[in-house]
C-alpha cells in the first residue's frame, strides 16, 4: 500500500535532478534563437551525453563511498586511443571499439585493484593513476590529430528517423545494458552496501570487495564509452590536461546535482545522467543570453559551489551535534 512512498523517497534525488533539467532545458530552448527544433536538441544531447557517461562512471565509484579523480584522464586516454584504432573497414572498426572499451575496463580495474586490494585511499590513488593515464594519452597523441571511422561517427551522433538524437539512444542502451543489471545484481547491492556501511556489510558477509572492484572497473568502461563518443564528435584525439581535469570536476558536480550522496550508498546513475544534462544546459544558458564566454568557467564554478553547499542543509536535521563529525 505504501510502496510508492518508499519508491518516492528512494528516487527523490533523481526526480529532483530530472525536474531541474526539464526546467533548465525549457528556459534554454525558449530563449534559443532557433527554438525547440531537432537540430538544437541534437547538439544539446551530443554535448550532454559526453558528460553523462563520465558522470555515470563517477556515480558507480561514489556509491561505494570512494571517488575516482582519474575518470577525466581515462576519458582522454580512450579518446586518444580511439583516434588511432577506430578506423578502417567494419571489422577493424569493431576491433578498435572493443580495444578502446577493454582499455577503459582495464584502467578502471587497475584503480579498483589499487584501492581495494592495495588498500590505498581512493583520492591519492586515483590522482596518481590519473597522472599515469594522462601520460599514456600524451604518448599516444603528443599533438592533437588522428581520425575516426566517419560513417560510424556520423551514425552515432546523428538522428534516428530524423528526430531522435542517436546519442541519446546509445545512452539509454548503455543504461539498460550496464547500469540496470549492475544495480540489481548481487555485486551492485554489495557496492551500495559497502558505501552505506562497509563494516556492517562486511559483517553480514556481503561480497564488498568484489562489489567495489566491479564498480571501479565498470566506471572505467563507462568513461571509455564517453571517450569513444568524444572521438565521434571531434573526429580527433587530443590529450588536453585541462579538459581531462574539467571532466573529472564536472562529473562530480553532475553526481551531486543528480542526488548521489558523496558519502556513498545513496543515489543512482539515472540521477547522475540528469544531473549531467542539467549541468551542461545551465552552462550553455550563458550562450543563449549572449554573455561573454569568458564568464563561463566562473559561472560553472559558482553552480558547482552552490550545488555542493546545498548538501549542508542536512545539518539542520541533525539532532545530536556529535553527528557532525563522521
Amino acid at each position, binding site marked *: 500500500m505504501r510502496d510508492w512512498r518508499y519508491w518516492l523517497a528512494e528516487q527523490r534525488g533523481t526526480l529532483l535532478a530530472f525536474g531541474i533539467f526539464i526546467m533548465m532545458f525549457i528556459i534554454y530552448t525558449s530563449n534559443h534563437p532557433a527554438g525547440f527544433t531537432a537540430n538544437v536538441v541534437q547538439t544539446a544531447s551530443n554535448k550532454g551525453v559526453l558528460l553523462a557517461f563520465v558522470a555515470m562512471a563517477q556515480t558507480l565509484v561514489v556509491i561505494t563511498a570512494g*571517488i575516482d579523480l582519474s575518470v577525466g584522464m581515462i576519458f582522454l586516454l580512450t579518446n586518444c586511443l580511439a583516434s588511432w584504432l577506430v578506423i578502417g573497414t567494419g571489422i577493424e572498426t569493431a576491433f578498435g571499439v572493443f580495444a578502446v572499451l577493454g582499455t577503459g575496463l582495464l584502467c578502471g580495474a587497475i584503480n579498483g585493484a*589499487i584501492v581495494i586490494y*592495495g*588498500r*590505498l*585511499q581512493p*583520492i*591519492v*590513488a586515483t*590522482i*596518481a*593513476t*590519473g*597522472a*599515469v*593515464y*594522462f*601520460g*599514456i*594519452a*600524451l*604518448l599516444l597523441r*603528443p599533438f592533437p590529430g588522428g581520425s575516426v571511422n566517419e560513417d560510424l561517427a556520423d551514425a552515432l551522433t546523428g538522428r534516428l528517423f530524423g528526430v531522435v538524437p542517436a546519442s541519446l539512444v546509445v545512452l539509454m542502451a548503455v543504461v539498460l545494458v550496464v547500469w540496470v543489471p549492475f544495480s540489481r545484481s548481487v555485486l551492485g547491492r554489495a557496492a551500495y552496501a559497502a558505501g552505506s556501511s*562497509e*563494516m556492517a556489510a*562486511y559483517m553480514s558477509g556481503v561480497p564488498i570487495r568484489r562489489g567495489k572492484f566491479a564498480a571501479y572497473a565498470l566506471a572505467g568502461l563507462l568513461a571509455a564509452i564517453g571517450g569513444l563518443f568524444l572521438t565521434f564528435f571531434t573526429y580527433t584525439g587530443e590529450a588536453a*590536461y*585541462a579538459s581531462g*581535469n574539467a571532466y573529472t*570536476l564536472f562529473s*562530480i*558536480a553532475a553526481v*551531486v546535482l543528480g542526488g548521489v550522496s*558523496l*558519502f556513498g550508498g545513496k543515489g543512482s546513475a539515472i540521477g547522475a545522467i540528469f544531473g549531467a544534462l542539467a549541468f551542461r544546459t545551465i552552462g550553455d544558458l550563458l550562450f543563449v543570453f549572449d554573455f561573454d564566454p*569568458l*564568464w*563561463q*568557467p*566562473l*559561472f*560553472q*564554478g*559558482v553552480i*558547482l*559551489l552552490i550545488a*555542493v*553547499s546545498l*548538501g*549542508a542543509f542536512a*545539518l539542520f536535521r541533525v539532532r545530536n*551535534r*556529535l553527528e*557532525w*563529525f563522521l
Partner: protein
Amino acid sequence: MSETAIGGIAGRMPKFIRRADPAVLTAFACIVLLLFVGSLYSRSFLSPEYLLQQLKVASFLGIIATGMMLVILLGQIDLSVPWSVAAGAMMACAAAAYGPVGVALAIPFGIFCGMLIGLVNGIGVAYLRIPSMIITLATNAVAQGLMVVYTGGFSPQDSATRAMRYLATGFAIPGVPNAVVIWALIGAAMVFVLTRTGFGRTVYGIGNRERAAYLSGIDTRRVVMIAFAVSGGLSAFGGVLLAGYASKAAQSMGDAYLLPAIAAVVLGGTSILGGRGSYLGTVAGVILITLLQSILSVMQMPEAGRQIIYGVVIVAMLLLYGRAPASR
C-alpha cells in the same frame, strides 16, 4: 608500536634510527639512491651549485607542501592548490600595477587572496560539513573562473615587483638563495606550531578523531577553518615567489604543483587519513620529488614519460608503506 617489538636487527641499531618513522627513513634512502643514480648519469650532479639550485627549486614546492601537510594532518585534503597558487601570483602582480602603495602591498595582497580561498574552503569543511575534496575542487573552479574573467583568458601582462624577485632569486646570505631561507623559516615555524603549541596538538587530535577532540572541549571547527586558511595563504605565497622567480604570473602555473604537493606530504610518511606525520618527512618528500623531477628532466624525458613515472612512483611507494589496515 615498534618500540615493543625490539629485537633482532632492530635491537642492534642506534636509538635514533629505531625511533625514526620507517617512512621518513625510506624517503631519505630514496633521496640517496636518486643522488647516486644522478651522479652516474652526470658528473656535475653532486656539485654544490647544482644541489643548491635544486634546493631553491624545491623551496617553492616546500612552502606549498607545508600548507598541504597541515590540511592532510587533519584528515582532509586541499585540491584548490592550482588556482590558489595562480591567484596569489596574479593578484600580487596585479597589485603592483597600482603605484607605490600597490608595489608595497603586492606580496601581502597575494597572500591575502589565497587566504580568502582557504577561508571559503575552511568554512565549507568545518561549518557546512562538505567533504573537503569536493569543496576545494569547487573553490578551485571558482578561483579559476575569477582569474579567467580578470585576465581575459590570457596570461596577465603585469610583472612581478622587485621585492618578489628579490625574495625568490636574491641572496641575503651569501651562497644561500633567499627562497631556501624562507622555506627554512616557514618550516621552523610549522615545526614549532605542530609540536609546541596547543593548536598543533589539536590538529593531530582532530586528525585522529574529531569527535573525541570536540568532546574534550576543543572548538575543532575553528581549528579546521584556520588550517585551511593557512594552507590557502601558503599556496598563494608559493605562487607569489614563483611569480618572482619567473618575473610574471601565468595562467596554469599552479597545475604542476597539486600532485607533487600531495605526493611530497604522503611520501614523507604523513597518513592521508590524518593524525600522523612529521614535518621532517615532508621535507624529505619535497626533496625526493624535486630530485626525481630534476633527474627526469636531465634525462630529457618528455612530459608524457614524466607523468607516468610520477604516478607509478607514488603508487609504488604508497603500496610500500601507506596502506590502510585490513578489515577484520
